[in-house]
């Protein structure tokens, strides 16, 4: 009954009360943060008047400091791919903590199928399998990686949908399992020396290309397809979704499968970019991905958020990280500041929702 008890008293509607889409606010926040770092660069005595955003040394054709912009987007692209998948998990009312370790495990497995036989004329010193696994077509490691991701996602989703345990617990368990797989795969030894074809997947600005490409695809899925609509419906009111005939359990499995497959793909791009895989890869990635989504306006209570929001959230994340480095803040303090920002984003989201509730 509580749902109907407020807002009684005639049919009123005020067009002015309609707020701009949340993404606009995040965009303004992004500009504000850039401006703050720009000002800090001018004000802080040890910065010698360096610019955060602009090309003051005439190194580039444009007025912007292209190198910095490039690094910012390159830095966030791989975690950003994970964040795109996590976005739909959070919108559906869940959470996925297993994506970081999944990156580690997938990278190890994928790299084992992507190794080349000869390194500078010598046999590959890091060979995992026998001769049969050398110089395989690039499609094989990619498919193996995506299948592994799909499997982990299917387990996550099935646990959450059919045993009704909280997503936090299910994916926390998977977090440990995946890190264990990553370490057990080669007893902690790194796996290196991929084929040229595999190395091309993450070369140069390729991660950015993948991130933005997948973002467009995921945006179309979330905004224009049945899958997206049902994801929002489940996160908004799971009982209503179930009563409306949506197969909630099957849908959840699909949501977690997509999230884990994107995390696996991020692992493919990352290991290709680094030309090596280590069992410790992807530490904190699950949290950073969740942070990007939350900064981008995805509500942890489910039902609200969008892919463009997450992309902007990823940019905010990248700008803050780059800005901290730019003002020469120590890495330890960066971690603390990042934590504070994530908490602030969640508090903001709560305030936003309470305001929305009291407005109706």
């Amino acid at each position, binding site marked *: 009954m509580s749902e109907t*008890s407020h807002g009684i008293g005639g049919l009123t509607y005020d067009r002015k009360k309609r707020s701009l889409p949340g993404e606009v606010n995040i965009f303004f926040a992004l500009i504000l943060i850039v401006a703050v770092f720009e000002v800090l660069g001018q004000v802080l005595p040890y910065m010698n008047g360096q610019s955060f955003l602009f090309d003051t040394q005439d190194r580039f054709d444009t007025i912007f400091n292209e190198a910095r912009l490039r690094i910012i987007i390159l830095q966030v692209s791989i975690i950003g791919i994970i964040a795109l998948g996590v976005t739909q998990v959070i919108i559906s009312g869940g959470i996925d903590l297993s994506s970081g370790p999944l990156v580690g495990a997938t990278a190890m497995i994928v790299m084992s199928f992507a190794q080349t036989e000869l390194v500078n004329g010598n046999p590959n010193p890091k060979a995992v399998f026998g001769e049969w696994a050398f110089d395989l077509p690039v499609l094989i490691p990619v498919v193996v990686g995506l299948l592994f991701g799909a499997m982990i996602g299917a387990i996550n989703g099935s646990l959450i949908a059919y045993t009704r345990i909280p997503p936090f617990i299910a994916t926390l368990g998977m977090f440990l399992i995946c890190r264990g797989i990553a370490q057990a795969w080669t007893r902690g030894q790194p796996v290196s020396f991929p084929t040229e074809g595999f190395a091309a997947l993450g070369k140069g600005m390729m991660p950015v290309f993948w991130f933005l490409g997948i973002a467009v695809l995921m945006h179309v899925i979330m905004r224009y397809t049945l899958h997206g609509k049902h994801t929002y419906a489940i996160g908004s009111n799971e009982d209503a979704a179930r009563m409306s*005939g949506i197969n909630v359990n099957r849908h959840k499995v699909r949501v977690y499968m997509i999230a884990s497959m994107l995390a696996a793909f991020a692992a493919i791009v990352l290991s290709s970019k680094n030309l090596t895989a280590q069992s410790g890869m992807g530490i904190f990635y699950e949290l950073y991905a969740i942070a990007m989504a939350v900064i981008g306006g995805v509500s942890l209570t489910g039902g609200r958020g969008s892919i463009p929001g997450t992309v902007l959230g990823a940019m905010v994340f990248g700008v803050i990280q780059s800005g901290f480095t730019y003002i020469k803040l120590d890495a330890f303090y960066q971690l603390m500041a990042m934590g504070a920002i994530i908490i602030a984003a969640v508090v903001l989201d709560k305030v936003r929702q309470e305001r929305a509730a009291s407005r109706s």
Partner: protein
Amino acid sequence: MADIILETQGLTKHYGGVHALNDANFKLEKGEHVAIMGDNGAGKSTFVRQITGVEQRTSGKVIFDGQEVNFAGPLDAREAGIETVFQTLALADALDVPDNLFLGREKTKWDWLGPFKFLDYKAMRADTLAALEKTGVKIPNIRNTIQNMSGGQRQCVAIARTASFHSKLTIMDEPTAALGVQETSQVENIIRTLKDQGEPLILVSHNMRQVMDLVDRIVVFRRGRIVANLRKEETDGQDIVAYITGAKTGAEFEGAA
């Protein structure tokens, strides 16, 4: 004799030792609007929950549209053609009006894409406007999300949703309990529209004026039993109150309460 859309025979529900519903024999004709009245705890909502499959009955039969049915859940009942507006609204707050009207039965295109088939927003918007017009519901902006709407608007959306899909039977459990005067009259207008369209309705209500205004027949529950079955023309408010409170018991139900 007119066609019977819904019949229950000896419908009984016990919660442990509590006999919430005992031996309810109920009939509803096609096109008929029946009100279910009774005090709190008289078994009204329990009765509805057994019919719609929200709960499983202890014993008795439910015959819907000529066939004995055993709904495993509310979804089964809905698929068979029973639409229910529950006391707690089954709406998704973060979605707008067309999304809610079509929740679970979206219009799509490019169906070969399976779960990723595209939504036909245009068709759903057009159908939403048609449905709202048909039921006389006024919503200023159907693109607004449900969370930004008043209680009455939400209830109207929930009812329009029910009314816009040609169901064989509509059940409303206290649809106006939490609404203001204006909103209540809007909901009542929708109910009249249903009547004009010949759609049968079971209305659970406490509101005597509303019941006398809207329905053909009144069934009174007391302490888990049906104690009266009254045609509207043959009764009045005082009479019904007497049945509800137990001052009177219908002749054919002697010894029931």
